[in-house]
């Protein structure tokens, strides 16, 4: 039947159609796409290897040969930023992914079942929250050892509590809606109700928190790299480049400027996109 077919095709393109109306969101999406392409084709785009040292050309200001200049070892900053997008985006997205999935699950279970389950989960989240997040990440990273994967886990776990809280709050307000009761009366099981009826209705705060969270994850990863618990040199990472250039900020500001700009633009783009997505995903705002 053509009605059902139209429906199938409808959902994603419908969301995209609504997203297109939001210019800022499209701008954000464009930048995110560019970043993703950069990360995937870093080998092709970067003019030099990320660890290639041109010691004679150290501390060069941006010029025709080195678009963003060179650092203290004469490494091309543009190439390092291009390669760094791989690490930063991975850390940002995967760490947030870990946090959203685990935190969202814990929050949903705790909000939906309430009572003792809720108490047990939320009190342990409170314990995690009582430790400053960056300290927690440091502690986890220190115990796991340095490395990209451990870094993602450390950043991810340390941001679980905030997602758990947000999801629990939304679930609590949605749990008592009549359509949840109606879903129960339809004979839906708990998991189906949570996945199909409750979580889609609390997407908005999760999406916003997640896009902000990507930014935070990139920054936390940068901080961890700075104290030697994250990415090990010479692998480029935006945060590590930022802190590496810190010592030269008076004389060679471009060493910190470009990685900083890269982080800023990424985060800004993600926030625009997140905002737009939230609106596009909400059928009530449909025109």
């Amino acid at each position, binding site marked *: *039947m053509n*009605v*059902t077919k*139209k*429906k199938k095709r*409808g959902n994603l393109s419908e969301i995209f159609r609504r997203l297109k109306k939001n210019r800022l969101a499209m701008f954000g999406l464009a930048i995110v796409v560019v970043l993703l392409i950069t990360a995937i084709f870093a080998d092709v785009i970067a003019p030099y290897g990320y660890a290639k040292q041109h010691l004679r050309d150290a501390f060069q200001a941006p010029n025709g040969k080195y678009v963003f200049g060179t650092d203290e070892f004469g490494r091309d900053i543009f190439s390092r930023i291009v390669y760094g997008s791989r690490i930063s985006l991975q850390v940002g997205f995967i760490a947030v992914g870990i946090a959203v999935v685990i935190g969202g699950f814990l929050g949903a279970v705790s909000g939906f079942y309430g*009572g003792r389950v809720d108490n047990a989960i939320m009190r342990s989240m409170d314990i995690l929250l009582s430790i400053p997040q960056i300290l927690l990440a440091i502690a986890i990273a220190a115990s796991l050892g340095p490395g990209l994967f451990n870094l993602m886990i450390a950043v991810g776990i340390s941001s679980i509590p905030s997602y758990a809280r947000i999801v629990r709050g939304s679930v609590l307000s949605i749990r008592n*809606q*009549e*359509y949840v*009761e*109606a*879903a*129960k*009366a*339809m*004979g*839906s*099981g708990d998991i*189906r109700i949570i996945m*199909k*009826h409750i979580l*889609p*209705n609390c*997407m908005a705060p999760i999406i916003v928190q997640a896009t902000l969270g990507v930014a935070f994850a990139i920054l936390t990863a940068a901080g961890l790299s700075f104290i030697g618990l994250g990415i090990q040199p010479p692998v480029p990472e935006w945060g590590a480049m930022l802190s590496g250039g810190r010592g030269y900020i008076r004389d060679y500001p471009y060493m910190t400027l470009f990685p900083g700009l890269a982080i800023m633009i990424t985060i800004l783009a993600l926030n625009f996109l997140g905002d737009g997505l939230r609106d596009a995903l*909400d*059928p*009530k705002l*449909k025109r």
Partner: protein
Amino acid sequence: MTEKKEYLLNIQDLTVHYETDSGVVCAVEHLNLHLGRGESLGFVGETGAGKTTTALSIMQLIPNPPGRILSGKILFEGEDLIAKNEEEKRHIRGGKIAMIFQDPMTSLNPVIPVGEQIAEMIELHQKVTKNEALEKAVKMLELVGIRPERARDYPHQFSGGMRQRVVIAIALACDPTLLIADEPTTALDVTIQAQVLELMKDLKKEFNTSLIIITHDLGVVAEICDKVAIMYAGSVVEYADTHSLYTNPLHPYTNGLFNSIPDLDADQEELKVIHGLMPDPTNLPSGCTFHPRCPMAQPECSQKRPEMLEIEPGHFVACPVCCNGLKKG
């Protein structure tokens, strides 16, 4: 006697309490009720009389805590629903007993297109693919008078009456044997009420579904029900077929209800009301729960809980006083 017949639904001595911090709320007390196949029953009573709690008990959806079914049996097709395990209960909900909720504005999920919501019900209870379920959903929509192309629309794009039609489509999608409608027309305006009632009446005939309508509108009951149960403070006080109840109401509470309907012809200054308020459900009066407000109350009314008496075949009243009067007169 009629009780020998096999009932579709037979509630025996049901007691449901809500155990809250401020005391035990006796929502339903020793309730007895039965309903045959294809019959429709109107459940009438004031707010807080336990109508919805009874309906939720049948669905086995009493929120626990604080709700607890203390005693009684709910026999559905001869089997006790209370004794079933969660898996079997889920199978019955929606598949055999479906429920229509009071407010169509909130009983549909705002982020799922209505067609999919109907399809979900079908997928849950019948072995069909997603596409087959969607096709059937579209057919259900047509059945309740909504154009098929609207299956892709979201609930907020429908008016209240149309949403209630969608809710009815969901409820009937799996051809349930019993449909419980909890004040299905309360949130709708009068013209739409009439349409929705008409629709329910037609569909009930078409699907041969038994129906329980919870309402406080005696007009709705007269429109659509074969039988009426009048509830007061957690128990049924009078149960009869619609005709004999409307022509010959016996229980003083039922009489009070009828008297409080304004008479269009008479030039009334004030409504005739039942004096007093519903008793506090945490602290029900002893004996007959209605005796503090009853114009016919006798000293013994506060002593003994009245039994259901069958005055005429199929007409039950829980009031010995008015029954005595009947026998004497």
